């Protein structure tokens, strides 16, 4: 039995392995696609024919769903995913997806402004469902805090705005959205700080802290400061190249953050003893929580 199959050592929080890069791809591509749908709806009133962006957005959502379909154990039963709308965010995400594709298809085929907005708002709902799906997982301390929803949704919005800025190379009129990107990055920075603070307050496995702390500095500078500066200058000066660079940086940093969140920072809860038992002559002792830097007493 190799080490990865040795389950007797599961006292410590362990990095989850059940959702791998394919699941992360659903959050990365689906989130970016949903964000791009909303960003495209916002930009659709500026006169340009942005329907190719809708195609890109729907393709991203589709790639994410395909990736997760390839991950599930029984893919030919996939339609069972629709059976628990009452409580499951995965079901709700799956229910939004066909509506999103239908409204996107109508917008592409008929170029109706209302369809752009319906697709955009459904994109927002879609990414909200994805964020809530993470939040509902009580077994992963890095995900279960409410602030996780905020940082994931704002990341998806940033990615959407970032991809819109990339498109400024083709549609120069979109360069103005570099300013929107900078504003969204400021909001995401606040959400990121709040997320880290909530994890510190509530406590997480030390391994999760190490992963997120290692990400923090690079994420702030490369994922926030640099693209915000580029987007702001590009938007104000009307320089599509700068806006494109800002968009690429913002989208890549968002994807890297979500990969880290889903695959690298996702350590399980582990186990805790609020009190160690009395045995023979020895008295009961203080609590133990291996792999954490705090013990919650009885």
């Amino acid at each position, binding site marked *: *039995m190799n080490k990865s*199959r040795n*389950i*007797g050592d*599961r*006292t410590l929080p*362990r990095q*989850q392995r*059940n*959702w791998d890069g394919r*699941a992360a791809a659903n959050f990365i591509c689906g989130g970016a696609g949903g964000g791009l749908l909303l960003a495209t709806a916002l930009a659709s009133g500026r006169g340009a024919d942005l329907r190719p962006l809708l195609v890109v957005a729907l393709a991203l959502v589709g790639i994410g769903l395909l990736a*997760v379909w390839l*991950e*599930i*154990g*029984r*893919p030919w*039963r*996939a339609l*069972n*995913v*629709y*059976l*628990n709308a009452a*409580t*499951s*965010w*995965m*079901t709700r995400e*799956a229910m939004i997806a066909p509506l999103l594709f239908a409204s996107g298809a109508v917008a592409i085929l008929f170029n109706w402004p209302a369809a752009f907005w319906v697709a955009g708002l459904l994109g927002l709902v879609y990414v909200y469902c994805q964020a809530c*799906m993470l939040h*509902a*997982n*009580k*077994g*992963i301390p890095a*995900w279960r805090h409410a602030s996780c929803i905020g940082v994931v949704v704002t990341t998806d919005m940033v990615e959407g705005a970032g991809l819109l800025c990339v498109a400024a190379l083709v549609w120069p009129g979109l360069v103005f959205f570099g300013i929107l990107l900078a504003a969204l990055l400021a909001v995401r920075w606040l959400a990121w700080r709040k997320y880290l603070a909530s994890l510190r307050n509530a406590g997480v496995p030390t391994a999760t802290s190490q992963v997120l702390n290692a990400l923090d500095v690079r994420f702030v500078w490369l994922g926030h400061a640099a693209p915000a500066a580029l987007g702001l200058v590009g938007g104000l000066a009307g320089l599509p190249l700068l806006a494109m660079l800002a968009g690429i940086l913002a989208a890549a940093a968002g994807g890297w953050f979500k990969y880290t969140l889903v695959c690298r920072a*996702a350590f*399980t*809860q*582990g*186990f*805790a*003893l*609020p*009190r*160690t*038992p*009395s*045995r023979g002559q*020895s008295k*009961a*002792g203080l609590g*133990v929580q*291996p792999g954490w830097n705090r013990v*919650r007493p*009885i």
Partner: protein
Amino acid sequence: MSTRFAMAIDLRRCVGCQTCTAACKSANATPPGVQWRRVLDIEDGRFPDVSRTFLPVACMHCANPPCMHVCPTTATKQREDGLVTIDYDLCIGCSNCIMACPYDARSIEHTPHYAYGEPMQSETARFDPDRLSVATKCTFCKDRLDLAAVTGQTPGVDPEVTPACVNSCISGAMHFGDVNDPDSNISMLLGGTQHFRMHEELGTDPSVYYIWDGAKNGADA
């Protein structure tokens, strides 16, 4: 009040022999690498002030099970008696329940595994293809509990209708019964001891109690 089956594990008595682990494996034919029940060995402190605790863990059959809430297929259900079950025919193997469970109680195996590579006769006989690529976990030996309804026996008292791990425990550390019945063996045991439930702060309302000391007034159960 309806029945709620629960387990009480006396940590003062557990010696970490893993007999419950083996009994579970034997009763449920789980493949290598999958243990619905296991006993963790927790060491703490620095010499000479050290402690060692054996902690049997499995599905806690929570009254508010996060695994059931996230399941997109309704494969994970909760019975009237509190047992949390999995319908292998509905499960799509999405692993969402594994992420939701704070007790690391669930497993998914996508390919068959055998103890020595090639299946032995006993492994072939008990291999269940329905359990591949779906979530699996401790069932509290629900078939035995269901038998109690037929025979009129009492789970936790009569071995035939008691989970295999509880029957096997050599030190009398594991107890089982209806925690809603004030006269049950488990209710009386819990009434006379100090105990906790794992990760109660998460609001899962688990059905496994860990006894760590006698009653506060000094009387021991």
